[in-house]
């Protein structure tokens, strides 16, 4: 078993980069949509054979056991090469929760199946009445003998139509005095009569997310993870690393590279106004990367990140949006056209980038919610 953490950062980066560059299929680089499992299955098998499916999990559970610094490098390289994250909700979200709060039986049963993608997971948190105010969720799970009986509706469930299991936050105690109490974390199979999945088409015409309806759906009581009615605090405990990951510069950096080649090809730099806005965007990306490096160094020194790390997400997602808006401007009369636009010997799908940038300020805690958090937790503002 390799001790990756013992390597220098540079050695490790090289190793990861070489593997991605040699093994990742060219046609899957920078995929503009979320793939179904079948589309990336071949790559997943390679990753699995290498033992690299779960970089953050401890080695004893089949992960790479990377510390925060190495993990950051792994993701940086993944994004740099445009390697698709695959169907990673099992690895990123359920796995860590089971590792932290699950029973031995749960670990033995579920973790290997996540690694092989025998089970493919989707995240059932949001509901029609519970978006930013997630604690408002109403989908119920009532105990009936050895089962939970689930009734209600989830929405915006990414790739639920290509998932075998759903991990969800459900209300198990409707009488609890605070709405954050009385919520539990349960796992449920999708393939059963009480679960109905309807896809929702996005603005860009993709089917990425779904509504999931539960009508007396059942899941065994042993699929409760952690204590009953303690789901809220557990789900929150997981967010800390995600917050730097979601603020990493790579999305904006990749888009900026695209913008530059596209704008150059189209002669947009002849316009001094465009030049200035490009320079603004480029410097926004560069200075964000400097701030990101400051937080990354904090992780590397073994410190835990504070709430202030959210500023990375606010800045980079809004910057990403501006960059894709500039791409549309550079496209001129082609700015409303679907599909790749040819410029010299490259193809740029201007609208795909634009659409991809839109939800980044909505999911992962909307940017307004991030601002609420920063104003209270970092600036100490009242109310």
């Amino acid at each position: 078993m390799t001790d990756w953490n013992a390597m220098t950062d540079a050695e490790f980066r090289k190793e990861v980069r070489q593997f991605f560059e040699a093994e990742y299929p060219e046609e899957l680089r920078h995929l503009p949509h979320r793939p179904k499992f079948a589309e990336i299955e071949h790559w997943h098998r390679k990753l699995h054979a290498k033992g690299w499916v779960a970089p953050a999990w401890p080695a004893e559970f089949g992960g790479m056991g990377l510390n925060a610094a190495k993990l950051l490098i792994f993701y940086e390289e993944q994004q740099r090469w445009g390697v698709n994250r695959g169907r990673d909700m099992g690895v990123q979200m359920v796995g860590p929760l089971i590792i932290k709060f699950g029973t031995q039986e749960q670990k033995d049963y579920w973790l290997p199946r996540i690694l092989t993608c025998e089970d493919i997971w989707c995240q059932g948190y949001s509901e029609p009445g519970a978006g930013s105010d997630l604690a408002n969720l109403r989908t119920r799970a009532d105990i009936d003998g050895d089962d939970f009986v689930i009734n209600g509706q989830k929405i915006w469930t990414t790739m639920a139509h290509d998932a075998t299991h759903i991990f969800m936050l459900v209300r198990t105690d409707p009488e609890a005095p605070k709405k954050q109490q009385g919520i539990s974390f349960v796992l449920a199979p999708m393939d059963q009569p009480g679960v109905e999945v309807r896809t929702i088409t996005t603005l860009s015409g993709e089917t990425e997310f779904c509504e999931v309806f539960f009508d007396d759906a059942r899941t065994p009581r042993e699929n409760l993870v952690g204590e009953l009615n303690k789901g809220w605090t557990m789900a929150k405990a997981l967010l800390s690393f995600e917050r730097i990951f979601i603020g990493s510069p790579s999305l904006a950096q990749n888009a900026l590279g695209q913008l530059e080649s596209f704008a150059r090809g189209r002669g947009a730099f002849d316009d001094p106004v465009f030049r200035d806005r490009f320079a603004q965007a480029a410097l926004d990306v560069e200075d964000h990367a400097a701030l990101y490096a400051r937080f990354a160094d904090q992780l590397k020194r073994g410190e835990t990140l504070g709430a202030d790390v959210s500023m990375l997400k606010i800045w980079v997602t809004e910057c990403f949006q501006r960059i894709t808006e500039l791409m549309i401007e550079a496209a001129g009369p082609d700015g409303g056209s679907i599909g790749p636009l040819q410029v010299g010997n490259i193809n740029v799908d201007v609208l795909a980038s634009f659409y991809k940038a839109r939800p980044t300020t909505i999911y992962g805690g909307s940017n307004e919610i991030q601002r609420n958090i920063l104003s209270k937790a970092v600036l100490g503002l009242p109310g």
Partner: protein
Amino acid sequence: MVRELAEAGVFGVAVPEDQGGLGMGLAAGGVIAEEVGRVIAPEPVVSTIGLSLGLLRRLCPDHPKMAQLIGGEISLAVAWQERGPDGAPADATCRYADGKLTGGKAWVVGAIGSHGFLVVAEQDDGPVLVLAEADAQGLVIDKRTQADGSSLGELSFSGTPAAELASSGAVLTALAEAVADATALAAAELVGLSERAFEITLDYIKTREQFDKPIGSFQVIQHRAVDLNVMCEVAQAGVREALAQMDSETDPKVRAPIASRAKARAVTAAKKITRDAIQLHGAVGYTDEFDIGLYLNRALVLSAWLGDDAYHRRIWFETREAEGAAQ
């Protein structure tokens, strides 16, 4: 205060140790400049570290004025830009011949109270750096008062005696380097200024009450405050990184756009932060009773000095294009 700064080694921070300085580089200079910015000190710290010492240490490190500058005994203003008939910056025409200067220089920081002037002029065989004493014959100093109460000097020389310090192309190279240093340090000064202006504003919105609540409890105000805070942090990270890069880089062609990146960022942040700070203070922010306005005024001056954000984005872009074309 200048003597205290000098005793702390502030002025010699970027001067190599074998030339009598601390040899700590621009990054350390930036930390000092941030502090100067926080207290909006009217001292010529950045212009001395970046411009006068920046020129002398590159062109004539053995000159006795070096030690005096480092020791805070004197200050020397640097004069290189000229104003054309339309009032805008113009090509240099100020002449140096037979030991005398003729012509004019504009936008000279620290001209009032300076012990002398380091003037970049033209002579028959190219550029020259000369030293004119403040009380030299035929030197007239016109002052233009700035928003922060400081002044810029407009100098006119008519046969003003001056001593040659260096000549040839090296003068322009050293000038460009010194200007790049000063530009990046001014960026750091703006970062410190922005941070302090933000802190003052944050305290204010926590204490000022309207509608029976602190105004900082209103979400609009909170989100604006967060945006200013994020802008501040990005500026600090970007400018500090730029200064460190300038220390590890020797090629002037590479250093110049890094300085531009720093100044562009710092000006953008400082403008936004100081102007929003006034808005968040309400009417009291528009009076001269309250410190916050001093930060706005100082930001105006530091933004216009050595190029504002739009100017530096242009330089940054053009240098990048020229390099791309060269490759």
